[in-house]
Protein backbone atom coordinates (compact mmCIF):
# COMPACT_ATOMS: atom_id res chain seq x y z
CA UNK A 1 0.00 0.00 0.00
CA UNK A 2 2.74 2.42 1.01
CA UNK A 3 4.58 1.50 -2.19
CA UNK A 4 1.52 2.57 -4.21
CA UNK A 5 1.24 5.88 -2.34
CA UNK A 6 4.91 6.76 -2.75
CA UNK A 7 5.11 5.65 -6.39
CA UNK A 8 1.82 7.43 -7.10
CA UNK A 9 3.09 10.69 -5.62
CA UNK A 10 6.31 10.48 -7.60
CA UNK A 11 4.68 9.68 -10.93
CA UNK A 12 1.96 12.30 -10.41
CA UNK A 13 4.49 15.08 -9.83
CA UNK A 14 6.16 14.19 -13.11
CA UNK A 15 2.83 14.06 -14.96
CA UNK A 16 1.85 17.44 -13.52
CA UNK A 17 5.06 19.02 -14.79
CA UNK A 18 4.62 17.51 -18.26
CA UNK A 19 0.97 18.57 -18.50
CA UNK A 20 1.54 22.10 -17.21
CA UNK A 21 3.20 23.42 -20.38
CA UNK A 22 0.55 21.77 -22.56
CA UNK A 23 -2.22 23.29 -20.43
CA UNK A 24 -0.73 26.79 -20.72
CA UNK A 25 -0.82 26.71 -24.52
CA UNK A 26 -4.27 25.18 -24.58
CA UNK A 27 -5.62 27.79 -22.14
CA UNK A 28 -3.90 30.93 -23.36
CA UNK A 29 -3.06 30.26 -27.00
CA UNK A 30 -6.25 28.17 -27.49
CA UNK A 31 -4.11 25.72 -29.45
CA UNK A 32 -4.01 21.96 -29.19
CA UNK A 33 -0.26 21.80 -29.53
CA UNK A 34 0.33 18.26 -30.73
CA UNK A 35 4.00 19.10 -31.19
CA UNK A 36 4.33 19.43 -27.44
CA UNK A 37 6.01 16.04 -27.53
CA UNK A 38 8.79 17.61 -29.61
CA UNK A 39 9.86 19.70 -26.60
CA UNK A 40 9.91 16.56 -24.48
CA UNK A 41 12.05 14.68 -27.01
CA UNK A 42 14.40 17.58 -27.62
CA UNK A 43 14.73 18.19 -23.88
CA UNK A 44 15.69 14.58 -23.20
CA UNK A 45 18.13 14.34 -26.13
CA UNK A 46 19.68 17.75 -25.46
CA UNK A 47 20.36 16.75 -21.87
CA UNK A 48 21.79 13.40 -23.08
CA UNK A 49 24.05 15.15 -25.62
CA UNK A 50 25.37 17.84 -23.27
CA UNK A 51 25.78 15.85 -20.08
CA UNK A 52 26.51 12.33 -21.30
CA UNK A 53 28.10 12.74 -24.72
CA UNK A 54 29.96 16.03 -24.15
CA UNK A 55 30.51 15.36 -20.44
CA UNK A 56 29.24 18.73 -19.24
CA UNK A 57 27.88 19.12 -15.69
CA UNK A 58 24.31 17.90 -15.30
CA UNK A 59 23.12 21.40 -14.38
CA UNK A 60 24.47 22.73 -17.68
CA UNK A 61 22.80 19.81 -19.48
CA UNK A 62 19.49 20.60 -17.80
CA UNK A 63 19.68 24.36 -18.43
CA UNK A 64 20.74 23.73 -22.04
CA UNK A 65 17.76 21.43 -22.57
CA UNK A 66 15.34 23.95 -21.04
CA UNK A 67 16.82 26.82 -23.08
CA UNK A 68 16.54 24.91 -26.37
CA UNK A 69 12.94 23.92 -25.47
CA UNK A 70 12.08 27.58 -24.85
CA UNK A 71 13.75 28.62 -28.12
CA UNK A 72 11.81 26.02 -30.10
CA UNK A 73 8.59 27.25 -28.45
CA UNK A 74 9.34 30.84 -29.42
CA UNK A 75 10.23 29.88 -33.00
CA UNK A 76 7.14 27.71 -33.33
CA UNK A 77 4.97 30.63 -32.32
CA UNK A 78 6.73 33.05 -34.68
CA UNK A 79 6.96 30.75 -37.72
CA UNK A 80 3.85 28.57 -37.49
CA UNK A 81 1.25 29.72 -34.99
CA UNK A 82 1.24 33.45 -35.71
CA UNK A 83 1.05 33.15 -39.53
CA UNK A 84 -1.74 30.55 -39.17
CA UNK A 85 -3.60 32.50 -36.48
CA UNK A 86 -7.29 31.81 -36.46
CA UNK A 87 -7.03 28.48 -38.25
CA UNK A 88 -6.91 25.97 -35.38
CA UNK A 89 -7.00 22.88 -37.62
CA UNK A 90 -4.06 24.12 -39.72
CA UNK A 91 -2.07 24.84 -36.54
CA UNK A 92 -2.80 21.37 -35.15
CA UNK A 93 -1.77 19.67 -38.41
CA UNK A 94 1.36 21.81 -38.72
CA UNK A 95 2.40 21.12 -35.11
CA UNK A 96 1.84 17.39 -35.56
CA UNK A 97 4.02 17.43 -38.68
CA UNK A 98 6.65 19.33 -36.73
CA UNK A 99 6.68 16.65 -34.01
CA UNK A 100 7.25 13.98 -36.68
CA UNK A 101 10.01 16.01 -38.34
CA UNK A 102 11.68 16.41 -34.94
CA UNK A 103 11.43 12.65 -34.42
CA UNK A 104 13.05 11.95 -37.82
CA UNK A 105 15.79 14.51 -37.16
CA UNK A 106 16.64 12.90 -33.82
CA UNK A 107 16.79 9.46 -35.46
CA UNK A 108 19.25 10.85 -38.05
CA UNK A 109 21.43 12.46 -35.39
CA UNK A 110 21.28 9.94 -32.53
CA UNK A 111 20.09 6.74 -34.21
CA UNK A 112 16.93 4.68 -33.71
CA UNK A 113 18.02 2.73 -30.62
CA UNK A 114 16.75 3.62 -27.17
CA UNK A 115 19.23 5.15 -24.76
CA UNK A 116 19.47 5.12 -21.01
CA UNK A 117 19.95 8.44 -19.28
CA UNK A 118 22.34 8.16 -16.36
CA UNK A 119 20.53 9.00 -13.10
CA UNK A 120 20.52 12.66 -12.18
CA UNK A 121 21.51 11.48 -8.69
CA UNK A 122 22.54 7.81 -8.35
CA UNK A 123 21.39 5.64 -5.44
CA UNK A 124 18.29 4.34 -3.72
CA UNK A 125 16.47 5.51 -0.61
CA UNK A 126 13.73 3.88 1.45
CA UNK A 127 10.69 6.14 1.91
CA UNK A 128 8.00 4.81 4.26
CA UNK A 129 9.13 1.28 3.50
CA UNK A 130 9.13 1.81 -0.27
CA UNK A 131 12.33 1.66 -2.35
CA UNK A 132 12.74 4.88 -4.33
CA UNK A 133 15.64 5.95 -6.53
CA UNK A 134 17.17 9.33 -5.79
CA UNK A 135 16.72 9.97 -9.48
CA UNK A 136 12.92 9.88 -9.46
CA UNK A 137 12.83 11.59 -6.06
CA UNK A 138 14.94 14.46 -7.45
CA UNK A 139 12.74 14.59 -10.54
CA UNK A 140 9.62 14.88 -8.39
CA UNK A 141 11.10 17.54 -6.10
CA UNK A 142 12.25 19.55 -9.14
CA UNK A 143 8.80 19.14 -10.70
CA UNK A 144 7.18 20.57 -7.59
CA UNK A 145 9.62 23.47 -7.41
CA UNK A 146 8.96 24.33 -11.07
CA UNK A 147 5.17 24.01 -10.64
CA UNK A 148 5.16 26.25 -7.53
CA UNK A 149 7.35 28.81 -9.31
CA UNK A 150 4.97 28.76 -12.28
CA UNK A 151 1.98 29.23 -9.98
CA UNK A 152 3.64 32.18 -8.25
CA UNK A 153 4.55 33.68 -11.63
CA UNK A 154 1.06 33.36 -13.11
CA UNK A 155 -0.74 34.60 -9.97
CA UNK A 156 1.69 37.18 -8.68
CA UNK A 157 3.27 39.03 -11.59
CA UNK A 158 1.95 41.50 -14.16
CA UNK A 159 3.01 39.20 -17.00
CA UNK A 160 1.33 36.23 -15.34
CA UNK A 161 -1.84 38.24 -14.82
CA UNK A 162 -1.62 39.33 -18.46
CA UNK A 163 -1.43 35.66 -19.48
CA UNK A 164 -4.62 34.96 -17.54
CA UNK A 165 -6.25 38.04 -19.07
CA UNK A 166 -5.41 37.00 -22.64
CA UNK A 167 -6.80 33.52 -21.95
CA UNK A 168 -10.12 34.98 -20.74
CA UNK A 169 -10.70 37.91 -23.10
CA UNK A 170 -8.19 38.92 -25.74
CA UNK A 171 -9.92 42.20 -26.57
CA UNK A 172 -10.17 43.09 -22.89
CA UNK A 173 -6.45 42.40 -22.54
CA UNK A 174 -5.57 44.49 -25.61
CA UNK A 175 -7.47 47.55 -24.37
CA UNK A 176 -5.66 47.19 -21.05
CA UNK A 177 -2.36 47.81 -22.83
CA UNK A 178 -1.36 44.17 -23.19
CA UNK A 179 0.00 42.96 -26.52
CA UNK A 180 -1.65 39.51 -26.87
CA UNK A 181 0.90 38.45 -29.52
CA UNK A 182 3.75 39.13 -27.15
CA UNK A 183 2.02 37.32 -24.29
CA UNK A 184 1.31 34.35 -26.57
CA UNK A 185 4.96 34.27 -27.60
CA UNK A 186 6.09 34.30 -23.95
CA UNK A 187 3.60 31.52 -23.21
CA UNK A 188 4.96 29.38 -26.05
CA UNK A 189 8.48 29.95 -24.73
CA UNK A 190 7.51 28.95 -21.18
CA UNK A 191 5.61 25.95 -22.51
CA UNK A 192 8.68 24.84 -24.48
CA UNK A 193 10.88 25.20 -21.40
CA UNK A 194 8.43 23.22 -19.23
CA UNK A 195 8.13 20.50 -21.89
CA UNK A 196 11.91 20.18 -22.18
CA UNK A 197 12.32 20.03 -18.39
CA UNK A 198 9.61 17.37 -18.29
CA UNK A 199 11.44 15.54 -21.09
CA UNK A 200 14.64 15.30 -19.06
CA UNK A 201 12.80 13.87 -16.06
CA UNK A 202 10.52 11.64 -18.15
CA UNK A 203 13.50 10.19 -20.04
CA UNK A 204 15.34 9.56 -16.77
CA UNK A 205 12.19 7.84 -15.44
CA UNK A 206 11.70 5.69 -18.54
CA UNK A 207 14.25 5.85 -21.33
CA UNK A 208 15.31 8.04 -24.23
CA UNK A 209 13.91 7.07 -27.61
CA UNK A 210 12.62 8.83 -30.74
CA UNK A 211 9.14 7.50 -29.92
CA UNK A 212 9.11 8.88 -26.37
CA UNK A 213 7.03 11.96 -27.30
CA UNK A 214 3.72 10.18 -27.84
CA UNK A 215 2.98 8.88 -24.33
CA UNK A 216 3.53 12.26 -22.60
CA UNK A 217 1.30 14.01 -25.15
CA UNK A 218 -1.49 11.50 -24.51
CA UNK A 219 -1.04 11.98 -20.75
CA UNK A 220 -1.11 15.76 -21.18
CA UNK A 221 -4.25 15.66 -23.32
CA UNK A 222 -5.90 13.39 -20.74
CA UNK A 223 -4.98 15.65 -17.82
CA UNK A 224 -6.15 18.81 -19.59
CA UNK A 225 -9.42 17.26 -20.75
CA UNK A 226 -10.21 15.80 -17.34
CA UNK A 227 -8.97 18.85 -15.43
CA UNK A 228 -10.39 21.51 -17.68
CA UNK A 229 -8.50 24.34 -19.25
CA UNK A 230 -7.02 27.26 -17.40
CA UNK A 231 -6.44 25.83 -13.96
CA UNK A 232 -2.97 25.13 -12.59
CA UNK A 233 -4.49 23.65 -9.43
CA UNK A 234 -6.90 21.55 -11.53
CA UNK A 235 -4.02 20.26 -13.64
CA UNK A 236 -2.09 19.39 -10.49
CA UNK A 237 -5.01 17.51 -8.91
CA UNK A 238 -5.90 15.59 -12.07
CA UNK A 239 -2.24 14.69 -12.64
CA UNK A 240 -2.42 13.04 -9.22
CA UNK A 241 -5.71 11.29 -9.99
CA UNK A 242 -4.27 9.86 -13.21
CA UNK A 243 -0.87 9.09 -11.66
CA UNK A 244 -2.44 7.17 -8.79
CA UNK A 245 -4.91 5.48 -11.12
CA UNK A 246 -2.08 4.16 -13.29
CA UNK A 247 0.07 3.00 -10.38
CA UNK A 248 -2.91 1.29 -8.74
CA UNK A 249 -3.95 -0.45 -11.96
CA UNK A 250 -0.41 -1.72 -12.51
CA UNK A 251 -0.08 -2.95 -8.92
CA UNK A 252 -3.56 -4.40 -8.44
CA UNK A 253 -4.84 -5.38 -11.90
CA UNK A 254 -2.38 -5.74 -14.78
CA UNK A 255 0.36 -3.54 -16.29
CA UNK A 256 -1.29 -3.94 -19.72
CA UNK A 257 -4.33 -2.03 -18.44
CA UNK A 258 -2.24 0.94 -17.32
CA UNK A 259 -3.73 3.53 -19.68
CA UNK A 260 -7.15 1.98 -20.15
CA UNK A 261 -8.85 3.43 -17.07
CA UNK A 262 -7.41 6.82 -17.93
CA UNK A 263 -9.12 6.63 -21.33
CA UNK A 264 -12.39 5.57 -19.65
CA UNK A 265 -12.02 8.56 -17.34
CA UNK A 266 -11.58 10.89 -20.33
CA UNK A 267 -14.71 9.56 -22.04
CA UNK A 268 -16.69 9.78 -18.80
CA UNK A 269 -15.66 13.39 -18.19
CA UNK A 270 -16.36 14.36 -21.81
CA UNK A 271 -19.90 13.01 -21.44
CA UNK A 272 -20.67 14.17 -17.88
CA UNK A 273 -18.75 17.43 -17.64
CA UNK A 274 -17.30 18.59 -20.97
CA UNK A 275 -15.58 21.62 -19.44
CA UNK A 276 -13.53 19.27 -17.22
CA UNK A 277 -13.60 18.68 -13.47
CA UNK A 278 -12.06 22.05 -12.65
CA UNK A 279 -12.77 23.98 -15.84
CA UNK A 280 -15.47 26.62 -16.00
CA UNK A 281 -18.11 27.35 -18.57
CA UNK A 282 -16.91 29.84 -21.19
CA UNK A 283 -18.60 33.24 -20.89
Amino acid at each position, binding site marked *: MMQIIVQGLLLSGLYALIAMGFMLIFSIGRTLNLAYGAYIMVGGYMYFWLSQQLGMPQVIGFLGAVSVGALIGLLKHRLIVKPLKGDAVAVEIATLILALITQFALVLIFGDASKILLPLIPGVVTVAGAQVTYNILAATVMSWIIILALYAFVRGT*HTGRAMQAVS*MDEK*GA*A*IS*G*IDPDRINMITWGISGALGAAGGVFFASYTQLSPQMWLAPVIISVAIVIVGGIGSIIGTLIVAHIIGFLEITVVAVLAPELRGVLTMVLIIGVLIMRPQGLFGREEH
Partner: protein
Amino acid sequence: MIRVENLSAFYGKAQALRDVSLHVDEGETIAIVGANGAGKSTLLDSIMGLVRNTGSITMDGQDITGRKPADMVRMGIGYAPERFNLFPHMTVRDNLLVGAYTARDEIEKNMAAVHRLFPRLAEREGQETSTQSGGERQMVSLGRALMTNPRVLLVDEPTIGLAPKVCVEIAEVLKRLSAERGLTVIVTEQNTNFALSLASRLYVLEGGHVTAEGTADELSKDDQLAKSYFGA
Protein backbone atom coordinates in the same frame (compact mmCIF):
# COMPACT_ATOMS: atom_id res chain seq x y z
CA MET B 1 -6.56 66.64 -29.16
CA ILE B 2 -7.89 63.74 -31.22
CA ARG B 3 -8.75 64.29 -34.85
CA VAL B 4 -10.28 61.60 -37.04
CA GLU B 5 -10.37 62.26 -40.78
CA ASN B 6 -12.04 60.24 -43.51
CA LEU B 7 -12.03 57.09 -41.42
CA SER B 8 -13.39 53.98 -43.10
CA ALA B 9 -13.46 50.64 -41.30
CA PHE B 10 -13.88 47.09 -42.53
CA TYR B 11 -14.79 43.66 -41.20
CA GLY B 12 -13.37 41.44 -43.91
CA LYS B 13 -14.87 42.85 -47.09
CA ALA B 14 -17.81 44.49 -45.32
CA GLN B 15 -17.46 48.23 -44.81
CA ALA B 16 -18.75 49.40 -41.43
CA LEU B 17 -17.68 53.08 -41.49
CA ARG B 18 -17.51 55.49 -44.43
CA ASP B 19 -15.36 58.62 -44.36
CA VAL B 20 -16.06 59.54 -40.76
CA SER B 21 -14.44 62.76 -39.58
CA LEU B 22 -14.63 64.20 -36.08
CA HIS B 23 -12.51 65.94 -33.52
CA VAL B 24 -12.44 66.39 -29.78
CA ASP B 25 -10.48 69.06 -27.92
CA GLU B 26 -8.58 68.59 -24.69
CA GLY B 27 -10.93 68.38 -21.70
CA GLU B 28 -14.01 68.30 -23.94
CA THR B 29 -16.76 65.67 -23.87
CA ILE B 30 -18.41 64.75 -27.15
CA ALA B 31 -21.10 62.19 -27.87
CA ILE B 32 -21.69 59.97 -30.88
CA VAL B 33 -25.37 59.16 -31.14
CA GLY B 34 -27.03 56.73 -33.47
CA ALA B 35 -29.22 53.67 -33.69
CA ASN B 36 -28.15 50.04 -33.36
CA GLY B 37 -25.77 49.11 -36.15
CA ALA B 38 -24.94 52.72 -37.00
CA GLY B 39 -21.23 52.02 -36.44
CA LYS B 40 -20.72 53.61 -33.01
CA SER B 41 -18.80 50.69 -31.50
CA THR B 42 -16.83 50.21 -34.72
CA LEU B 43 -15.81 53.86 -34.57
CA LEU B 44 -14.40 53.52 -31.05
CA ASP B 45 -12.83 50.14 -31.89
CA SER B 46 -11.18 51.79 -34.90
CA ILE B 47 -9.78 54.67 -32.86
CA MET B 48 -8.44 52.05 -30.45
CA GLY B 49 -6.73 50.12 -33.28
CA LEU B 50 -8.93 47.05 -32.94
CA VAL B 51 -10.48 47.17 -36.42
CA ARG B 52 -8.79 47.43 -39.80
CA ASN B 53 -9.29 50.93 -41.10
CA THR B 54 -8.18 53.55 -43.57
CA GLY B 55 -8.06 57.30 -43.11
CA SER B 56 -6.22 59.27 -40.50
CA ILE B 57 -6.25 59.43 -36.70
CA THR B 58 -4.04 61.97 -34.95
CA MET B 59 -3.52 62.69 -31.29
CA ASP B 60 -1.88 65.98 -30.29
CA GLY B 61 -0.88 66.32 -33.95
CA GLN B 62 0.89 62.95 -34.00
CA ASP B 63 -0.31 60.36 -36.51
CA ILE B 64 -1.45 57.26 -34.61
CA THR B 65 -3.28 55.56 -37.48
CA GLY B 66 -2.80 51.78 -37.60
CA ARG B 67 -1.13 51.47 -34.22
CA LYS B 68 -1.82 48.48 -31.99
CA PRO B 69 -4.29 48.82 -29.08
CA ALA B 70 -1.42 48.46 -26.60
CA ASP B 71 0.27 51.50 -28.20
CA MET B 72 -2.96 53.48 -27.99
CA VAL B 73 -3.16 52.72 -24.27
CA ARG B 74 0.43 53.87 -23.82
CA MET B 75 -0.44 57.07 -25.73
CA GLY B 76 -3.11 57.76 -23.10
CA ILE B 77 -6.34 56.40 -24.56
CA GLY B 78 -8.53 54.37 -22.20
CA TYR B 79 -11.51 52.35 -23.40
CA ALA B 80 -14.62 51.01 -21.68
CA PRO B 81 -16.32 48.89 -24.38
CA GLU B 82 -20.04 48.15 -24.63
CA ARG B 83 -19.69 44.48 -23.68
CA PHE B 84 -17.19 45.30 -20.92
CA ASN B 85 -14.72 42.57 -22.03
CA LEU B 86 -13.80 41.88 -18.41
CA PHE B 87 -11.92 38.83 -17.18
CA PRO B 88 -14.77 36.82 -15.73
CA HIS B 89 -12.83 34.48 -13.46
CA MET B 90 -10.67 37.18 -11.96
CA THR B 91 -11.61 39.26 -8.96
CA VAL B 92 -12.54 42.92 -9.25
CA ARG B 93 -9.11 43.84 -7.88
CA ASP B 94 -7.28 41.66 -10.40
CA ASN B 95 -9.35 43.09 -13.25
CA LEU B 96 -8.29 46.57 -12.16
CA LEU B 97 -4.67 45.45 -11.79
CA VAL B 98 -4.67 44.18 -15.38
CA GLY B 99 -5.63 47.73 -16.36
CA ALA B 100 -2.46 48.91 -14.62
CA TYR B 101 -0.28 46.83 -16.98
CA THR B 102 1.20 49.94 -18.59
CA ALA B 103 0.92 52.22 -15.53
CA ARG B 104 2.62 50.15 -12.84
CA ASP B 105 4.22 53.09 -11.05
CA GLU B 106 0.86 54.61 -10.18
CA ILE B 107 -1.16 51.59 -9.13
CA GLU B 108 -1.95 52.70 -5.58
CA LYS B 109 -2.84 56.25 -6.61
CA ASN B 110 -5.06 55.12 -9.47
CA MET B 111 -6.65 52.33 -7.42
CA ALA B 112 -7.54 54.82 -4.67
CA ALA B 113 -9.03 57.17 -7.28
CA VAL B 114 -11.15 54.35 -8.75
CA HIS B 115 -12.35 53.40 -5.26
CA ARG B 116 -13.31 57.02 -4.56
CA LEU B 117 -15.36 57.11 -7.77
CA PHE B 118 -16.88 53.67 -7.21
CA PRO B 119 -16.88 52.80 -3.48
CA ARG B 120 -18.76 49.59 -4.32
CA LEU B 121 -15.68 48.25 -6.10
CA ALA B 122 -13.64 48.63 -2.91
CA GLU B 123 -16.30 46.76 -0.95
CA ARG B 124 -16.36 43.93 -3.49
CA GLU B 125 -12.77 43.79 -4.61
CA GLY B 126 -12.51 40.05 -3.88
CA GLN B 127 -15.59 39.15 -5.92
CA GLU B 128 -15.26 37.54 -9.36
CA THR B 129 -16.74 39.75 -12.05
CA SER B 130 -18.67 36.80 -13.52
CA THR B 131 -20.92 36.99 -10.47
CA GLN B 132 -21.57 40.74 -10.67
CA SER B 133 -24.54 42.74 -11.93
CA GLY B 134 -24.41 44.72 -15.18
CA GLY B 135 -24.01 47.99 -13.30
CA GLU B 136 -21.10 46.67 -11.26
CA ARG B 137 -19.42 45.31 -14.38
CA GLN B 138 -19.77 48.72 -16.01
CA MET B 139 -18.02 50.22 -12.99
CA VAL B 140 -15.20 47.66 -13.23
CA SER B 141 -14.91 48.35 -16.95
CA LEU B 142 -14.62 52.11 -16.38
CA GLY B 143 -12.30 51.51 -13.42
CA ARG B 144 -10.03 49.30 -15.50
CA ALA B 145 -9.86 51.96 -18.22
CA LEU B 146 -8.97 54.57 -15.57
CA MET B 147 -6.20 52.32 -14.21
CA THR B 148 -4.42 52.79 -17.57
CA ASN B 149 -3.99 56.45 -16.58
CA PRO B 150 -5.73 57.84 -19.66
CA ARG B 151 -5.94 61.40 -20.96
CA VAL B 152 -8.76 60.42 -23.30
CA LEU B 153 -11.56 58.07 -22.30
CA LEU B 154 -13.65 56.23 -24.88
CA VAL B 155 -16.93 54.97 -23.42
CA ASP B 156 -19.20 52.79 -25.53
CA GLU B 157 -22.91 52.90 -24.65
CA PRO B 158 -22.42 53.06 -20.88
CA THR B 159 -26.15 52.98 -20.09
CA ILE B 160 -27.21 50.02 -22.19
CA GLY B 161 -29.22 47.55 -20.14
CA LEU B 162 -28.64 49.41 -16.87
CA ALA B 163 -31.15 50.62 -14.29
CA PRO B 164 -31.91 54.39 -14.40
CA LYS B 165 -30.29 54.90 -10.99
CA VAL B 166 -27.03 53.33 -12.19
CA CYS B 167 -27.16 55.46 -15.37
CA VAL B 168 -27.31 58.60 -13.22
CA GLU B 169 -24.37 57.32 -11.17
CA ILE B 170 -22.33 56.67 -14.33
CA ALA B 171 -23.18 60.10 -15.72
CA GLU B 172 -22.05 61.74 -12.48
CA VAL B 173 -18.73 59.89 -12.60
CA LEU B 174 -18.09 60.92 -16.21
CA LYS B 175 -18.89 64.54 -15.35
CA ARG B 176 -16.54 64.43 -12.36
CA LEU B 177 -13.76 62.95 -14.48
CA SER B 178 -14.13 65.75 -16.97
CA ALA B 179 -14.45 68.53 -14.40
CA GLU B 180 -11.90 67.40 -11.82
CA ARG B 181 -9.28 65.65 -13.94
CA GLY B 182 -9.78 67.46 -17.23
CA LEU B 183 -10.28 64.12 -18.94
CA THR B 184 -11.29 64.21 -22.60
CA VAL B 185 -14.29 61.94 -23.17
CA ILE B 186 -15.82 60.42 -26.29
CA VAL B 187 -19.04 58.64 -25.41
CA THR B 188 -21.38 56.76 -27.74
CA GLU B 189 -25.06 56.50 -26.87
CA GLN B 190 -28.48 55.56 -28.14
CA ASN B 191 -29.92 57.37 -25.14
CA THR B 192 -29.82 60.93 -26.46
CA ASN B 193 -30.90 62.50 -23.18
CA PHE B 194 -27.97 60.84 -21.44
CA ALA B 195 -25.64 62.07 -24.19
CA LEU B 196 -27.02 65.62 -23.93
CA SER B 197 -26.45 65.63 -20.17
CA LEU B 198 -22.74 65.06 -20.73
CA ALA B 199 -21.57 66.35 -24.09
CA SER B 200 -20.90 69.81 -25.42
CA ARG B 201 -21.18 68.61 -29.02
CA LEU B 202 -22.80 65.63 -30.70
CA TYR B 203 -22.18 63.70 -33.87
CA VAL B 204 -25.03 61.76 -35.43
CA LEU B 205 -23.93 58.49 -37.01
CA GLU B 206 -26.20 56.71 -39.49
CA GLY B 207 -25.23 53.74 -41.62
CA GLY B 208 -21.55 54.17 -40.81
CA HIS B 209 -21.52 57.81 -41.84
CA VAL B 210 -21.70 61.11 -39.93
CA THR B 211 -24.92 62.79 -41.05
CA ALA B 212 -24.96 65.74 -38.65
CA GLU B 213 -22.83 67.42 -36.02
CA GLY B 214 -23.10 70.36 -33.67
CA THR B 215 -24.35 71.45 -30.27
CA ALA B 216 -27.70 70.24 -29.01
CA ASP B 217 -29.24 73.62 -29.88
CA GLU B 218 -27.89 73.50 -33.42
CA LEU B 219 -29.04 69.94 -34.02
CA SER B 220 -32.49 70.49 -32.55
CA LYS B 221 -33.19 73.09 -35.26
CA ASP B 222 -33.29 70.29 -37.81
CA ASP B 223 -36.86 68.99 -37.61
CA GLN B 224 -36.07 65.46 -38.72
CA LEU B 225 -33.14 65.11 -36.33
CA ALA B 226 -35.14 66.64 -33.51
CA LYS B 227 -37.88 64.12 -34.11
CA SER B 228 -35.52 61.16 -34.38
CA TYR B 229 -33.12 61.95 -31.57
CA PHE B 230 -34.48 64.65 -29.28
CA GLY B 231 -38.04 63.48 -28.87
CA ALA B 232 -39.49 66.63 -30.42
